[in-house]
């Protein structure tokens, strides 16, 4: 850590560093395809990625991440995952809890919508995670094999907490004695979603089977390509959802622009603590920050729609898809990498 005396120097260095990374990152394929998607959608392009292809991309990415994790966990030690996993749960819950306190106070924001929104931003986006992993892998940064497995540890608590809070809110508002919310069905529902079950199946197959040949000929080499297609789709989607976002209070857009970075820094801080306590790798810290900064795009929305049906999906999905995810990828990822470079040396 640098001496506090020359902290101006350091701030400027950091900013230059981040700026430099930005320019590089803007050219990284994942980001470029995301921005490209937004751009051509804004130009009125009729290009569409078929739904079947989009779903297959998601499957490919999560299976690839899971398989790699599973194959490597075999050789690694899983106990060291404990502290980071606790950190992930804490970050997920904190984002929802603190976020709710802020958002619910804003004018024109319905409590239900607020809680659903913070739930979505507390949850994790698999595609944002994949984009960060590709970038780190290209920079030869090593992280523990089990890092992607932290995903559900942050994702599920955030969603569950949001649904529980919404129910408490509703019953206290209506004055009726609230009926006890059963948590296990929500957890199960989350785990059964297409994204998480592909990830978990991948880990399982990586652990127990010998999928190396298919990993090396299919899931690994095509990873980047399918990620680029997914990013393009998300860019197209981000633009087309803007219309919906415009129909709701502007606070959502503001929250969606700021929250990803704050959440990411919170995740970074918790990751840093885990680093000090247990030697959690710098690249792992970056990925924890990326998860925290991301907002769920695949499994979160339907879970929240079912769990908080009274919330308006246009508010939370619009905020997350149109603003949150682009900010998390475009500004968040390079920020955390630069931060890690600065704090840990060239490790990340």
């Amino acid at each position, binding site marked *: 850590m640098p001496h506090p005396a020359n902290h101006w120097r350091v701030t400027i260095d950091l900013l230059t560093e981040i700026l430099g990374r930005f320019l590089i990152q803007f050219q990284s394929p994942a980001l470029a395809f995301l921005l490209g998607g937004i751009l051509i959608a804004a130009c009125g392009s009729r290009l569409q990625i078929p*739904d079947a292809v989009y779903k297959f991309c998601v499957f490919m990415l999560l299976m690839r991440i899971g398989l790699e994790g599973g194959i490597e966990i075999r050789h690694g030690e899983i106990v060291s995952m404990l502290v980071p996993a606790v950190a992930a749960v804490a970050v997920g819950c904190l984002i929802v809890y603190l976020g709710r306190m802020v958002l619910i106070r804003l004018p024109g924001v319905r409590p239900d919508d607020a809680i659903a929104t913070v739930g979505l931003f507390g949850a994790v986006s698999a595609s944002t995670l994949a984009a960060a992993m590709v970038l780190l892998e290209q920079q030869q940064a090593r992280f523990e094999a089990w890092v992607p497995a932290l995903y559900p540890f942050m994702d599920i608590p955030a969603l569950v907490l949001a649904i529980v809070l919404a129910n408490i809110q509703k019953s206290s508002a209506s004055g009726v004695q609230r009926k006890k919310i059963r948590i296990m069905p929500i957890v199960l529902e989350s785990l059964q979603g297409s994204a998480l079950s592909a990830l978990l199946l991948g880990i399982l197959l990586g652990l127990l089977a010998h999928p190396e040949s298919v990993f090396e000929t299919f899931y690994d080499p095509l990873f980047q390509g399918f990620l680029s297609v997914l990013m393009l789709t998300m860019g197209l989607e981000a633009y087309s959802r803007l219309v919906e976002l415009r129909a709701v209070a502007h606070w959502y857009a503001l929250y969606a622009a700021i929250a990803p970075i704050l959440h990411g820094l919170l995740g970074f801080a918790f990751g840093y603590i885990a680093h000090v306590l247990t030697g959690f790798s710098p690249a792992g810290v970056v990925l924890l920050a990326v998860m925290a900064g991301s907002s769920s*795009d*695949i499994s979160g*929305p*339907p879970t929240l*729609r079912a769990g908080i049906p009274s919330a308006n999906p*246009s508010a939370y999905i619009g905020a997350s*898809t149109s603003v949150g995810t682009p900010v998390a990828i475009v500004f968040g990822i390079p920020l955390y990498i630069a931060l890690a470079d600065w704090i840990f040396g060239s490790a990340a």
Partner: protein
Amino acid sequence: MSLEAVKVVVITEKLIAEKVCALIEACGATGYTVVAAGGKGSRSIRSANRARVVDEFSNVKIEVVTPDVAMANQIAESVIDEFLNDYSGITYFETVQIVRSQKFRR
């Protein structure tokens, strides 16, 4: 040979399609038909045909041929009560002439 009957149509979010179908069966219907749909109503546009990042929000159109008005009413009312406050959707009836009428009675 043909017999008057009532067809209940429910257009709602795909996300709850399975639950609505279960409700319809619980009301005693002998069957139902589901079609993927897009549309626009008082909420937002839902398209049936493109890669939405959140596909679960597009629509379905569910049709149930019921043997009598009573069952039709029951289906429509239960669906409205249970779902259409929180989820977007509409429901309406049509009069149809069924040809193999025994198929629609339990």
